[in-house]
């Protein structure tokens, strides 16, 4: 705590010096400029807006860009940034690339919004927290393309909050599906969890899904027909403790009681995958290389399996996942940051990103050119995938509920307590 405070102190001192230094003056000029501009160029087009921006730009434009630390990302982003700068020869850019793991993006940005990167790439589950903290700049207008025409409606909608657009759709492949080894498992085997665990037991191998994790656990309950929704005040509605929920939990418990069923975190998964133990596992495009290397010519992917609830086969649902490019609400150069974000998410850039990383584009044109087992599996699962909108109180109780299911401790009481925790009021 102390460390945090000291840094907060330092940060605030810096922020204050910024205020004292130039805050007032800059605000004034900005205000007058805006007023003038509205009068003179009421009917200007977007080209004029960019021309205005170029004309109004003096000196070097500094833009910080944070994206995933993987080598593929860093390389392709560096190239795209250079291309962007080359588009505007009259402007002197200084675009700095920072490596921040996407899972930590929200935490790193919220550490100090004012000092964080101007443009950053983040997964869709962080959108809400970032909007709530006021860290994202609203996409009030677009200048080089219109995402409503170029991108799939689902991704555009996923980047909205309260009816406002906050992110630029970037990739549409951040959901989960089933990887399997087709040399060992047949299509029938991967159709249901019951068949899958039976076959894996027979083979003496492992299959599974990270059950003690709310992100995956949701798929089972949603698939069974339960619901989890978010209220306006960020509290949740959840009915997992009804009869269907109990049946789903008991069914999952009996599936998980199989010796072959494992709930590995990512590290353990990769270790056991390389040992050749895991023959099918629920995961996403971030592990595409690991699975294709481990399975070789047996590498395959498909939609999630079904599971039996009250004797009926139910398709396991999932969260669809997207990545967005966001502009910091406190960006130094809002205009240029927005243009960079647009550039990074246009059709050609998305294609380049797909080629570098294998992640599925959200742009329809780029998507049409992309094809891989993983992306096809995602497309097959997309019918059962839901946009993730859930309040922060969901995760800890859901994780604990998953752990209870794995430990074979499901009861009405456990579900009641979990639902009480998930739906606890937000002050």
């Amino acid at each position, binding site marked *: 705590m102390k460390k945090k405070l000291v840094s907060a102190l330092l940060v605030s001192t810096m922020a204050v010096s910024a205020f004292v230094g130039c805050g007032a003056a800059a605000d004034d000029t900005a205000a007058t400029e805006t007023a003038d501009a509205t009068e003179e160029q009421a009917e200007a087009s977007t080209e004029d807006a960019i021309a205005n921006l170029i004309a109004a730009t003096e000196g070097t434009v500094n833009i910080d860009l944070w994206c995933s630390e993987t080598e593929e990302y860093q390389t392709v982003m560096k190239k795209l940034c250079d291309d962007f700068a080359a588009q505007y020869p009259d402007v002197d850019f200084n675009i700095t690339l920072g490596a921040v793991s996407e899972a930590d993006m929200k935490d790193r940005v919220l550490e100090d919004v004012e000092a964080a990167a101007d443009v950053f790439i983040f997964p869709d589950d962080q959108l809400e927290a970032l909007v709530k903290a006021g860290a994202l700049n609203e996409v009030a207008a677009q200048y080089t393309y219109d995402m409503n025409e170029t991108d799939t409606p689902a991704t555009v909608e996923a980047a909205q909050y309260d009816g406002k657009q906050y992110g630029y759709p970037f990739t549409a492949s951040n959901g989960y599906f089933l990887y399997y080894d087709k040399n060992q498992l047949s299509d029938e085997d991967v159709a249901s969890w019951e068949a899958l665990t039976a076959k894996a037991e027979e083979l003496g191998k492992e299959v599974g899904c990270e059950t*003690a994790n709310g992100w995956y656990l949701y798929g089972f309950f949603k698939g069974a027909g339960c619901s989890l929704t978010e209220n306006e005040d960020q509290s949740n509605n959840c009915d997992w403790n009804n009869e269907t929920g109990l049946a789903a939990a008991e069914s999952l418990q009996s599936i998980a009681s199989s010796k072959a069923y494992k709930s590995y975190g990512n590290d*353990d998964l990769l270790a056991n995958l390389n040992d050749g133990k895991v023959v099918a596992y629920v995961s996403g495009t971030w592990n595409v290389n690991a699975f294709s290397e481990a399975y070789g010519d047996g590498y395959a992917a498909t939609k999630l399996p079904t599971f039996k609830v009250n004797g009926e086969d139910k398709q396991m649902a999932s969260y669809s996942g997207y990545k967005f490019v966001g502009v910091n609400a406190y960006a130094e150069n809002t205009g240029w940051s927005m243009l960079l974000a647009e550039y990074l998410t246009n059709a050609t850039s998305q294609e380049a990103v797909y080629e570098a990383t294998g992640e599925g584009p959200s742009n329809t044109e780029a998507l049409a050119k992309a094809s891989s087992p993983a992306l096809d599996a995602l497309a097959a699962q997309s019918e059962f995938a839901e946009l993730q909108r859930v309040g922060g109180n969901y995760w800890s*109780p859901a994780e604990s509920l*998953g752990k209870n299911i794995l430990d074979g401790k499901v009861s009405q009481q456990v579900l009641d307590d979990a639902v009480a925790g998930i739906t606890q009021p937000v002050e």
Partner: protein
Amino acid sequence: MKKIANYFKDFGYAVAHGDIWVKLSLLIMGAGYFGRKQIARGILMTLLQVGVISSIFGVFMPYLSKLNTLGTVQREEVFDILTMKKTVNDYDNSLLILLFGIIGVLVIVAFIALYIGNIKAVYRIQKMKEDGEHINSFLDDIASFKNERFHITLLTLPSIGVILINVIPILFMICIAFTNYDENHQPPTYLFTWIGIKNFVNLFTTSQTITFGYAFVRVLAWTLIWAVVATATTFLGGILLAQFINHEDTHFKGMWRSLFVITIGIPQFVTLLLISKMFGDSGIVNTFCSNVGITEFFRNIGLLNPGDSFIPFLSKPGWVHVNIILVNIWIGIPYQMLVATGILMNIPSDQIESAKIDGANKFQIFWKITMPYVLFITGPSLIQSVIQNINNFNVIYLLTYNYKTTNMAMANSHANEADLLITWLFRLTNEYSNFKMASAIGIVTFIICSALSLLTFSRMIGGDKEGVYR
């Protein structure tokens, strides 16, 4: 109480009996010195007065005036589509208001103290003048900082440091505990405000939805058990190890000692992360145990349930507690061994020799002479390490960052059985941005630690136990 009363009485007396210069000092702080021809001192004092007052009104007043609400104007921005420029209103930042408010209050308090002190000082000089004593010139004053007022010269920097990095952050944290600073109220975009003692009420409340009270009691109990057991085991282990290495029959003393010191050399977090992987549910130790049949054996003797396929070293309550302490013994003993070696070498040999002559055996000597002596010497540092262990973030967090609880009531307040107060607090701030509850927990931890140290230190060092060993 009497002291405080006297403090203000002296001030009143000085004002009432002072001459025109003293009374003028009420307005212009340097006046009293000008009247006694201490021009430089007068100018400095007046400049200080002008500086402080103008900074209070220029810098701190805007924040101080909002301290009661922590700001009312939320950030609003307007983006102009045509110029791609953004206009932002003049918004309040609750965090800055709180911070500068605290500093402002401190400055004002310090200034009032200076003001009162100044009046007393000029009155004293008036007295000295009336009595015909020597009044210091400016050069005399400066020279005095090297002699009779040398302590001021020495202590100025450290005290400023203490105020900046200790007092202000602590006050700041205490204040946060009384606000609603959480994920829905994050500055600079959103405002937070005072909510009284609600956080503390929540911390001690238990209902089906608010489980902080339930979690708090359990986390606190484990924190205290952990701190005492961890300290005691490493301490005893360290002494025994040092005894063993120092024993006359032990060869290659240097080698043994360096072997254990090597464990210190490896950065702790690397070792801990490795251990947490090795002892994971599908880690290398579990694979080994199931291959050689230890897992089977544990199942047979009832330590594990029939269905368990692995040993939950770091994933079940009970198991995790024992294993954390064992791991801590392993990484903590070398430090204690080094400390103990130093002490053992300095035990007065006359006592041990006389005990030998009296026919005491080795164990009696160790138990009756060595241990009390070592305990006496290391007492204060033992308390210190209990406190350190209460806040031992590394060992707990790095070993159990993957721990998942099955206890719904714990999970509902984002805690788990392996958490210490400090790791719980870390998770609340880092993953859930719940700064208000974290501050409340922080204050409680602070109270526990300070109460513990005050109590034990005053017991140990108080009295004249030192005489016993002289």
